[in-house]
């Protein structure tokens, strides 16, 4: 799971200085370095990058290794940092391992054309945004039990350039027991794997002290995965402790979270071929149902110590894949307590359908509802996000994404409505 942490200083681009932003945007999860390592196509692991298919998730759950014996599938031998026999010499020697022989790097670039409606004449209502984002991605394995993933990301946000450089080091002791140190993504949707330009509302909903699920955080996580009965489906869990806000913790308290998913049917969560024979197959198929839940609890700093916010977040997810169709959704409940103020409850949910018209053409429609305060008179904001994704090549993608608030005409007039044409490529 990926994250990015950005520290924001408000410095305009015109001064040619770089600003580091505090809050993250979703980061890509696709990394062509793996394509080179295994000499295999992007679609071996990706439904349409960065969204993972069933095998890609199993690859991830194996610590970025091929299930069933990584050494049989990699097409380049790593550089050894010590002979295997040094395992017998330990503790009188450093435990041996290896590193990728060629640089495990890749580039991902994103450009956009944005058009928003209902803007006053003095405001630009359509803009080319090239580049929107450029990422240097890196990931791989170190020996048999350590793996890493990270990126250096440059993103334009209005007149600012944001830089983020998250990374994560993992100890993959067993498939059921892994320790992740570094940038943690709590978001189980996960927002950074979405295909639309528009982010998931459950990920962007902010607490009163500006916490949101989308933001990656520094900390550590214990996680694991395993196959279910007959080698199909299976389980995955994660439990961790993180700062809660910012690269450096904003307060003395740490946040904690625990989550779990269970998959019924489909490819095993850690791969394998048992029970997988079928007369039809495709890289985008995986007939299965996955349900999951997340509990997050923390304390988020406010402008003063007295304004600290006790936060409890509950999230439920469902992900149904059948033939060419995917239907998924999430519902998030957030409870915010600040001393001296009324408690606030927020509720957000989305339901989304994706359909593979052709392996290179995917239609998407998402309905979202966001109620920042369920106790007040303001109605929930409902938004419709239709989109279409076209894979020009396995590593070149175009997306047309339209965001239409449908519950409140004033929001549409407030320039919430608009569409984006986005181009992604990576190598």
């Amino acid at each position, binding site marked *: 799971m990926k994250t990015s942490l950005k520290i924001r200083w408000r410095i305009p681009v015109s001064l040619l200085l770089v600003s580091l932003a505090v809050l993250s945007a979703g980061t890509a999860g696709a990394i062509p370095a793996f394509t080179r390592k295994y000499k295999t196509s992007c679609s071996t692991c990706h439904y349409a990058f960065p969204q993972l298919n069933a095998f890609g998730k199993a690859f991830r759950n194996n610590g970025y290794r091929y299930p069933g014996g990584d050494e049989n599938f990699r097409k380049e031998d790593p550089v050894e940092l010590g002979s295997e026999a040094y395992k017998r010499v330990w503790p009188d020697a450093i435990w041996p391992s290896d590193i990728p022989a060629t640089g495990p790097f890749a580039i991902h670039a994103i450009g956009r054309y944005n058009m928003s409606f209902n803007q006053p004449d003095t405001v630009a209502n359509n803009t080319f945004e090239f580049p929107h984002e450029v990422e240097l991605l890196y990931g791989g394995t170190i020996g048999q039990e350590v793996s890493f993933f990270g990126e250096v990301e440059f993103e334009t946000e209005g007149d600012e350039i944001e830089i983020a450089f998250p990374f994560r080091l993992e100890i993959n002791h067993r498939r059921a027991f892994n320790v992740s140190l570094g940038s943690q993504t709590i978001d189980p949707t996960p927002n950074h794997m979405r295909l639309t330009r528009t982010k998931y509302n459950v990920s962007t909903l902010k607490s009163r002290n500006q916490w949101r699920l989308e933001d990656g955080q520094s900390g550590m996580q214990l996680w694991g995965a395993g196959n279910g009965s007959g080698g199909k489906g299976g389980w995955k869990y994660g439990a961790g402790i993180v700062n809660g806000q910012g690269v450096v913790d904003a307060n003395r308290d740490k946040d904690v979270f625990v989550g779990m998913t269970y998959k019924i049917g489909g490819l095993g969560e850690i791969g394998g*071929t048992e029970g997988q*024979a079928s007369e039809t197959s495709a890289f985008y198929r995986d007939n299965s149902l996955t349900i999951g839940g997340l509990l997050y609890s923390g304390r988020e700093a406010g402008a003063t110590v007295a304004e600290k916010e006790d936060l409890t977040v509950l999230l439920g997810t469902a992900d149904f894949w059948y033939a060419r169709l995917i239907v998924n959704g999430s519902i998030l409940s957030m409870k915010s307590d600040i001393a001296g103020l009324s408690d606030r409850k927020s509720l957000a949910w989305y339901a989304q359908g994706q359909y593979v018209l052709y392996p290179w053409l995917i239609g998407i429609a998402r309905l979202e509802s966001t109620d920042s305060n369920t106790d007040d008179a303001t109605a929930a904001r409902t938004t419709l996000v239709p989109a279409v994704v076209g894979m020009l090549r396995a590593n070149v993608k175009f997306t047309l994404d339209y965001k239409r608030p449908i519950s409140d005409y004033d929001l549409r007039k407030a320039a919430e409505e608009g569409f984006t044409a986005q181009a992604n490529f990576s190598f």
Partner: protein
Amino acid sequence: MKTKRALTTALLAGSLLISSGPTVAGTIKGKVTIARARNLADMVVYVEKAPGDFTPPKKHAVMDQKNLVFIPHVLPAVVGSTVDFLNSDQVLHNVFTPDKCAKKFNLGTWPRGEVRSMKFDQIGCSAVLLCNVHPEMEAYVVVLQNPYFAVTDKSGLYAIPDVPEGTYTLRVWNKKSLEFSQQVTVPKQGDATADLKLKG
């Protein structure tokens, strides 16, 4: 009487010899070259048409999927042959072809250890085999009239054994569909050499 018996025996022996098929055969060998080509492997050199009817071997030909690669990359086969497709990997594989001459078959997906088979019954068909789980995987089955064929090695060398005496048209199949044919004569005794130069 003795002479008559000897003559009858000789005639009988001769007729047996004729009906048991040709017994004189040689090897056609040589080298295929293509200007500016670095890798000359995996071209099929074959006798276009040989007299007689050729039944496919009872033992099925085999194509494996191992380490995300089809093995062999090119498989020539006599028309009517059945090919057994194996999966020797710990990941799922699939075999299908977009080619009409092989009826655009799709064998589905199967796990390690299982075998699925397909019969190839159209002469001249060269079917590309793909895996829809791993798009980079590719192989070919080339369906031929007779068993006189060979696959070139990296240097372009080939050897077709047991070709009966006679004059034949030798052709080369390759992925780039470069056309080439050449006459070759297999003598009554000994081998024939044919070096084939294709234009790249």
